[in-house]
């Protein structure tokens, strides 16, 4: 369990890399932008996936997001416009981190538990 903290340290592992101290209460898109990190975005409310980044260490709270399906979440994706850090984190950001974000659904179908959280079948239920 992460300790309570006002700030966490975010390490950006790609795109020139960098380490930034950010407010724990605010979305990572806002705080990283203020540090000058150039990030993609679209809707800014967690619905469109444009700002997706890959979390390779640490944890975030992204309960507000409605864009990611469970497979994308299992692959480490977070949407920065609503994700707030709950520990120190390491992120890969931008489209360079999207190698596993997009799939051709005719080539690679989702299992029932891999759908978006609101319609996925919980693992173990059939």
């Amino acid at each position, binding site marked *: 369990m992460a300790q309570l903290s006002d700030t966490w340290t975010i390490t950006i592992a790609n795109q020139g890399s960098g380490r930034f101290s950010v407010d724990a209460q605010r979305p990572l898109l806002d705080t990283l932008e203020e540090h000058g990190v*150039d990030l*993609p*975005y*679209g*809707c800014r*409310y967690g*619905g*469109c*996936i*444009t700002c997706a980044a890959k979390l390779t260490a640490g944890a975030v709270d992204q309960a507000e997001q*409605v*864009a*990611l*399906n469970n497979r994308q979440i299992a692959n480490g994706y977070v949407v920065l416009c609503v994700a707030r850090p709950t520990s120190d984190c390491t992120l890969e950001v*931008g*489209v*360079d981190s*999207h190698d596993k*974000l*997009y*799939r*051709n*659904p*005719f*080539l690679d*179908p*989702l299992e*029932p538990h891999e*759908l*978006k959280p609101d*319609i996925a079948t919980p693992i173990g239920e059939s």
Partner: protein
Amino acid sequence: MASAADAEATCCGPGYASPDDAMTAPAEKLLYTVALYTGTGIQKPDYLATVDADPESSTYSKVIHRLEMPGIGDELHHTGWNACSSCHDDGSMSRNYLLLPGVRSNNIYVVDTATDPKAPSLHTIIDGDEIKEKTNLSGPHTVHCLGSEIIISFLGDANGEAPGGYLHVNEDFEIVGRWENSMGDIPYGYDFWYQPRHNVMISSEWAAPNTFMPGFDLEEVGHLKYGRRLHVWDFEKREPIQTMYLGEDGLLPLEVKFHHNPDSTHGFCCAALSSNVIHFWQDDEGGEWKWEKTVDVENELHPEWPIPLPGVMSALLVSMDDKYLYVNNWLHGDMRQYDITDPHNPVLTGQVWIGGLLGKAPEVNGVEVAGGPQMFQLSLDGKRLYVTTSLFSTWDNQFYPEIRTKGGVMVMIDCDVENGGMSINEDFIVDFGQEPNGPSRCHETRYPGGDCTSDIWL
């Protein structure tokens, strides 16, 4: 009612007195197409590209101007004019502003194309947050003018959940409010077209923004997260009056077009995932609206994939004389021309291949194509069809990941309007892979003088 000759003599509003009149207009010399960086990895704004379409010009088939939006991440998509032939009798109106909605940002950009048609400029912005606040709408799509005012379909509420509704904007581009009086039990929105002489509007269904914006999960179709109905509206009362349930024949019914002839009740919709053309019509004024499937493109087996590949018929267009219907199959890679002289019995008269996943045309005019035929616009005389290859950034990224480095292309197809038939014009190709800021993706195209998907006659 004034005769056509009287109208010619007295009016000087936008557009043309009739579809026949529109067909005799001078050929288009400029094209406007939106071009995207959203979702491409290039941190630049989307822009409106001006393409030179004058074969006599030294910059023919090139992008000659780029109007950048003020910020990144809009996802420009469809566009529409402030006025069309429905205001032809109103000398105080002119077609001088193109509206560019950003699907992801919710902003609507109003672009002045009249002051310098080659170099359009930003006139004003209808702010996306203000639209959410005042009307509880997000995910803008189709723009139609409505006399001197404008309505725009939105696919979601302010939180990106369906069904959304219609934004009403006045001629000064101020928010009036919601246009519709009721959405009835409509679950989803997308495109719409209206035919005033029959007091009718037909709307179609894609999905909630939160469903389609992140990409296409095929499995969500079975969970009823995507549409399968058409809706008939009482246009004056601004409320839906009949549902046409299309079922498996009409999965993802997207673009809706009526005949241009304002007396006709015949219209068409393309069901993208079913890859069918749906024909709808009304036999007697005031009676039920009917529908039938008139074209059914079979899924194709791909040697390495477990699930057969649908065509994905995402767009459709009717020639100004109502003789030909054009449809695409974005994943298969073909554009088709059907003779719809009898709208119940379309006859396939032309087909060409541009990109696609079946490997039939990986290259066109020396340019490698990533994507397949997607949006298209036809010249008023019906002879030149301009086709672009990107659908929506996230969907492009799923099906055609190489579009990231190759960008989109615009191709021109020569259409034989006498005998039917299509062929790719060898002198025209615009490679958006070569754009100065890196590969971008082109989408909907319009012409300054009106085109085959803008004008409605009262």
